[in-house]
């Protein structure tokens, strides 16, 4: 049914939006209904995305124009293999996080604000991945960025508000930079559609360069690119853990996704190779990797350490984009998957620990592995994957990335990846070691008698699924994310058609 197909993207974006309103009304009556609806919405969204699978794998590109805001400037949707992959990933993780939230958030205040926001950010995130032109992408990007502000400041502590303000200002800066880039693209190309048969900008010029830099700032801000990462380590830790998982696991990736679209659709690969502008991206990516990993070591707060680790990991993805060959791209897209799985596992596990013990600092976590073995086991799996130990998915993505770097003749990048993995080891392993073998100390010592249980099963199941995915997608030579990454990379290099 071709008809149904082309409406699906609209449905996927609109359904959560409508449900947001529904939830908003329902939550006045019943909390249970609210939670159920939130989970149901994310499940339905995930299934709807999944329904796109046959069409997309057959190489079909679904396009649908909703309406034109201005001449040549429409709200339109377009699903190709790359959109599909990321949408699938996001909706999947969103679903798990929604389930996780039910128990995590039950003790938090302001749930009536949290759930609608959770669902509408899902909608806008789907909108970003399924946008058919840069303008739609921009609209949903801004929507997501602004609304996730509410997630960031959910705790309403002074710390959170301060981090939120930083986040908000950076978002505005990023949004304006994107606006700048998009309008130059529109001026030069006459359109901002992603389904243009040829790249929108074909002539290098000052304006085109400005636009590139603007896109880099706009999307790089979101992706936590150096030097625009400053908001990230503040904003991610202060959010509630499920929200941190989404912020780090998914929302960072929208920036990378945007950059992919810009490089392959707005400029085109030949253009990029000819001008060599990606060198800028490569340089900042390298700095981002080293900086993120190195600073993470010095962090005492667990979630803050995870946030810095995200900065480092986003550096891999940006580096992958800058290399511009098939294997690097493949590694890069696969790393989007891997990092999403790993980082959400880590944040959700951290959340479970915080919920049960209230401990946020790493030095207090000694012996926690004996009290919450299951959670800590999942944490360990993800952390090992993060370091890049085979056979986890983190290893697979780094491996592919390195191969790509070798193909491109820059073994230097491989060295960077190695150093960074070493640093990752330096900051993840101590947590694990002290959790399982360390002595319990600190404030918790007096309350030795209080038995700390595992988190409720509604929280454990998502953690388990994610942790197992880390292992599974690394272990199996041919799995769905890997295939998708491969096809998407080929597709992008073909010029995106």
């Amino acid at each position: 049914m071709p008809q149904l197909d082309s409406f699906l993207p609209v449905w996927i974006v609109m359904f959560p939006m409508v449900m947001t309103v529904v939830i908003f009304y329902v939550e006045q009556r019943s909390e249970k209904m609210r939670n159920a609806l939130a989970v149901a919405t994310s499940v339905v969204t995930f299934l709807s995305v999944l329904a796109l699978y046959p069409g997309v794998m057959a190489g079909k590109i679904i396009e649908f124009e909703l309406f034109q805001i201005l001449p040549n400037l429409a709200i339109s949707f377009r699903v190709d293999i790359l959109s599909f992959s990321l949408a699938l990933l996001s909706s999947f993780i969103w679903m798990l996080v929604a389930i996780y939230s039910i128990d995590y958030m039950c003790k938090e205040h302001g749930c009536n604000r949290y759930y609608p926001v959770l669902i509408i950010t899902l909608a806008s995130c789907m909108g970003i991945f399924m946008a058919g032109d840069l303008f739609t992408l921009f609209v949903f990007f801004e929507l997501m960025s602004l609304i996730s502000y509410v997630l960031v400041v959910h705790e309403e502590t002074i710390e959170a508000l301060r981090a939120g303000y930083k986040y908000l200002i950076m978002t505005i800066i990023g949004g304006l930079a994107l606006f700048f880039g998009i309008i130059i693209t529109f001026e030069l190309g006459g359109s901002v559609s992603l389904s243009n048969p040829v790249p929108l900008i074909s002539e290098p010029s000052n304006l085109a360069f400005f636009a590139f830099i603007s896109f880099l700032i706009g999307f790089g801000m979101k992706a936590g690119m150096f030097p625009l990462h400053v908001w990230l380590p503040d904003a991610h830790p202060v959010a509630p853990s499920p929200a941190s998982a989404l912020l780090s696991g998914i929302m960072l990736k929208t920036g990378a996704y945007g950059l992919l679209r810009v490089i392959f659709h707005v400029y085109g690969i030949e253009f990029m190779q000819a001008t060599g502008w990606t060198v800028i991206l490569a340089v900042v990516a390298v700095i981002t990797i080293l900086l993120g990993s190195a600073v993470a070591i010095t962090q005492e707060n667990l979630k803050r350490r995870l946030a810095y680790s995200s900065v480092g990991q986003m550096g891999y993805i940006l580096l992958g984009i800058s290399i511009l060959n098939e294997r690097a791209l493949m590694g890069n897209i696969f790393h989007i998957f891997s990092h999403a799985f790993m980082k959400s596992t880590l944040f959700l596990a951290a959340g479970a620990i915080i919920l049960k013990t209230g401990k946020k600092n790493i030095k207090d976590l000694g012996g926690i592995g004996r009290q919450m073995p299951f959670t800590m086991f999942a944490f360990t799996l993800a952390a090992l994957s993060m370091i890049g130990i085979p056979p986890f998915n983190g290893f697979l993505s780094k491996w592919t990335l390195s191969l790509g770097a070798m193909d491109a003749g820059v073994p230097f990048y491989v060295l960077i990846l190695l150093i960074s993995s070493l640093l990752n080891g330096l900051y993840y392993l101590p947590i694990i070691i002290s959790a399982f073998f360390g002595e319990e100390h600190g404030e918790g010592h007096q309350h030795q008698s209080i038995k700390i249980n595992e988190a409720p099963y509604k929280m454990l199941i998502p953690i388990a699924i994610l942790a197992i995915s880390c292992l599974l997608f690394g272990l199996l030579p041919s799995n769905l994310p890997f295939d998708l990454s491969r096809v998407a990379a080929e597709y992008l290099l073909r010029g995106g058609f």
Partner: protein
Amino acid sequence: MNLSQHLPALIVVVPLFFAFVMPLLARWRKQWCVPVTLGAIIFSFVAAVKMAFQVMNTGPFSYYMGDWPPPWGIELGIDYLAAFAALTITGVGLLIIWYGSKDLLHELKAEVIGWYYTLYLLLIASMVGIVITNDIFNMFVFLEICAIAACGIISIKESRDCIEAAFKYLVLSVLGSGAFLLAVAMLYMVTGHLNFTFMAEALPEAMALYPNNLLVALALLIVGLGVKAALFPLHVWLPDAHSSAPSPSSAVLSALVIKVYAVAMIRLLYLVFPRELLGMAPVMEIILWMSSLAIIIGSMFAIVQDDIKKMLAYSSIAQIGYVFLGVGLMSESALVGGILHIFNHALMKSMLFLAAGAFIYGTGVRKLSELKGIGHTMPIPAIAFCIGAFSMVGIPITSGFISKWYLALGSLDVGRPFFMGVILISSLLNGFYYLPIVVNAFFGEPEKAVAKPKPLPKQMLVPLTILSFGVIFFGVFPSLILGIVYRAAQLLLGL
């Protein structure tokens, strides 16, 4: 008798007529004041809608007062710009006074409320008059009525600040009018006409003979209208006047009154003065730089304000800069952006002022720092304020984005990305002062007066809701209004 053919006259005369009826009503039938005022403005609004449709279907048309054809009689010319501006004025004006019908009760003494409606109707009539007249002296008369009525709706609240602000405004306004009248004299001297069309025909010839005369006239016009439109650096009167006035007055002053002068200036610069004259002196360059400074400095001043209405007033200075930026760039997109911003800013700023008014009405708090948590206790005005703020920053799907889009496109069209940078920097600055308010409103514990506000009457909530809906609606479907704006810009540029 076919009423619809007399709409251009009636749209001005009906509010004018009821303005004079109002003192009588205020004396004997107080309860009729509000319905009659609303009725008169609704009539004008319907007339404006009808004229807009007519102008879109059959093109510009004119109306001869007293059946005297120009150049002898006064001609009212309904072109795209006029219809568009009339629509904006009457539409937004209607919502503001609807809101005002309740808000004024607590801001003004009971015995002067009738007079307020008189002044308001005069103001609406004169603003519509300014935009639809095709006769420069007629324009001057309407300018004066507008100036006095505008000062009147400030000074009617007899507080110290209001009287003082009104006096300052009046003096500067009179200076502006004087400059305008002198310019009219100079133009009449060399062309012998007062009608725009005839003047425009005679000017090229006159320019060859008396270029200096025309340059002086042009300078006087820009200064005269610039003072009234608060174009930087002639804005000194605006912050006091707009912040001290009663909220509906602030809304109408910021949203409409300063725009009307911009419309007058657009008409004179583009339709009357020959293009070569604009080439002789760097007029457009000057306007461009003045507006850029207005945009940046207005926003910067707004950041340091602690009074909510004063902040909005400074923001208006920046926003009028956008309109003039569009005028100065002289490209189609930019002009579209500038003209569209007249409408968009009218929506946004009236909404913001009305929301601020609602805060003041409900809690009596004017200080930004004390408005913490207002979003919990007064959700509708706070959400309206939030939408307005987003629109000011230029977040997509709000109407502010559309005008910024066109302005930026226009500055690229003429190859001057610098001015796009100005727009973006000012958007950022807007973010700096609007967003903290929004954040404070929703993420803070209400204290003292903010915790227990007076409930807002429906007459205040409904206009606010309509305006905020409008901001979103025209952000998503700008094409409804863009058609007429495009044609206006094309007509002005002679495309």
